[in-house]
């Protein structure tokens, strides 16, 4: 029997593509049986570049590793260098770092909720959530001077202080955001579109989550209660109380609800920080050259656990700096959750929502997908827009 193979080339430069990354799906009928991924289209070479700049010049570079979780990377970096000096920052600076981290987490989760609404096909939710997101961007701008890349922490503490006018604005903003988030928490579970496209989709069992080393909300949505802020507390997290959220349905619906509940917890943490802020200086001066040694620092970014490693050799430039962003840790669990195995089926129509489910922060994900059907010998290529149109027709 001779087989014909159909290939439709949609090249790397195409007006419909948003970001470059590459997945290859092996399909039989409607079920996906195997997934392969190719990444690395936006490798910027930051680790090598950091070895040729001083410790102070590296702070804006570390901030630009990711646009949305930039606070997590700067807090992790400055903490790492302070571990080398063995001198902790003042207590008020640690409370301010927790404040800015939780504001960043609220922003990131609200942005993601809008993106999920867009991927599922519910553009009204997308518009409403992004209108509420403008409120928190204005609060961040009033506190730090810029909407996205905040540049608030430095080696030895923070650069700016909290004034009473900004504190008043933050309290008013938190009241409004709490009411809006509770509204989303009521409507998202009962809405028929979101329930049909998220309940029972993309199962990742707890054993698989532990074996494949999932991090962040992906791990907590599989009934494992682990969080870096509780297991390995840093900054002021040993005094600020919060609950670790986890759901045990292990599917995409659990991932949405974990993030919505974490937003509500973050609003309470911001209020606690404002009520209990200690007084004192916000910065100590440290010499230019840290002592010889190595240090490891971990932080809970909005997407998961972020780990940095530094090794210094007595000069004012680092000898080796390693960054492991959280999305790389979630790549293997993602590929596993998109495969049909045992009694868990994954259809072609579930692919766009599952790709958005890990909250991907690899700032270039190619939306050109190649499909291979081995039994019929067919292979074809679609862009993301074509796939979305196909999924909405069902």
């Amino acid at each position, binding site marked *: 029997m001779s087989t014909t193979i159909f290939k439709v080339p949609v090249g790397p430069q195409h007006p419909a593509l948003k970001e470059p990354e590459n997945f290859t799906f092996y399909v039989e009928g409607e079920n996906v049986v195997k997934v392969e991924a190719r990444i690395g289209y936006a490798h910027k070479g930051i680790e090598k570049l950091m070895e040729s700049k001083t410790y102070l010049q590296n702070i804006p570079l570390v901030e630009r590793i990711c646009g949305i979780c930039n606070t997590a990377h700067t807090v992790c970096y400055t903490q790492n260098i302070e571990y080398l000096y063995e001198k902790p920052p003042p207590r008020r600076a640690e409370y301010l770092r927790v404040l800015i981290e939780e504001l960043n987490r609220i922003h990131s989760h609200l942005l993601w909720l809008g993106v999920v609404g867009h991927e599922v096909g519910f553009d009204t939710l997308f518009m409403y959530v992004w209108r509420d997101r403008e409120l928190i961007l204005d609060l961040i701008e009033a506190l730090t001077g810029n909407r996205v890349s905040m540049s608030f922490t430095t080696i030895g503490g923070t650069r700016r202080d909290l004034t009473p006018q900004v504190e008043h604005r933050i309290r008013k903003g938190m009241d409004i955001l709490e009411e809006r988030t509770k*509204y989303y928490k009521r409507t998202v579970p009962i809405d028929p579109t979101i329930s049909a496209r998220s309940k029972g989709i993309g199962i990742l069992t707890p054993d698989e989550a532990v074996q494949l080393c999932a991090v962040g909300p992906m791990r907590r949505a599989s009934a494992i209660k682990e969080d870096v802020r509780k297991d390995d507390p840093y900054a002021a997290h040993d005094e600020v109380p919060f609950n670790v959220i986890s759901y045990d349905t292990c599917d995409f619906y659990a991932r949405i609800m974990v993030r919505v509940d974490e937003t509500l917890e973050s609003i309470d943490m911001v209020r606690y920080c404002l009520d209990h802020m200690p007084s004192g200086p916000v910065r100590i001066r440290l010499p230019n050259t840290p002592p010889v040694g190595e240090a490891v620092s971990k932080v809970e970014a909005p997407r998961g656990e972020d780990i940095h490693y530094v090794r210094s050799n007595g000069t004012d430039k680092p000898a080796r700096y390693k960054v492991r962003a959280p999305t790389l840790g979630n790549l293997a669990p993602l590929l596993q959750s998109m495969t049909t195995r045992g009694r868990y089926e994954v259809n072609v129509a579930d692919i766009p929502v599952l790709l958005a489910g890990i909250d991907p922060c690899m700032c270039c994900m190619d939306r050109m997908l190649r499909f291979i059907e081995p039994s019929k010998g067919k292979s074809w290529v679609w862009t993301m827009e074509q796939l979305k149109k196909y999924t909405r027709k069902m």
Partner: protein
Amino acid sequence: MSLAVELLRNLVSRRATVLYPFKDREKVHVPEGLRGRLTFNRQLCIGCGMCFRVCPSETVEMIEDEKGKRPRFYLDRCTHCQQCEDVCPTKAIGLTQQFENFGFDRKEMILE
């Protein structure tokens, strides 16, 4: 059904978008402490070179003029991180609230 109530409520309330820059330019709220465009005061500068050592993106270049050493700023490379203002001992450098920084020629973006 609660979404229908929300829809009706938003139909009668104010529009959320601001038509910048065509109609509502003055309605854009700019907070104090915004990190905008650089300014430089030559009278206060003592030529220590700290801004050059601290800038992460090579915006600053040290040159000589009749009073001594002084920096020159290439504003198309600036990342607005405010390190130069933090470290200057005489407060000769400042960041303003102007957020519209563009020019049609590279030579317009040099600050002396």
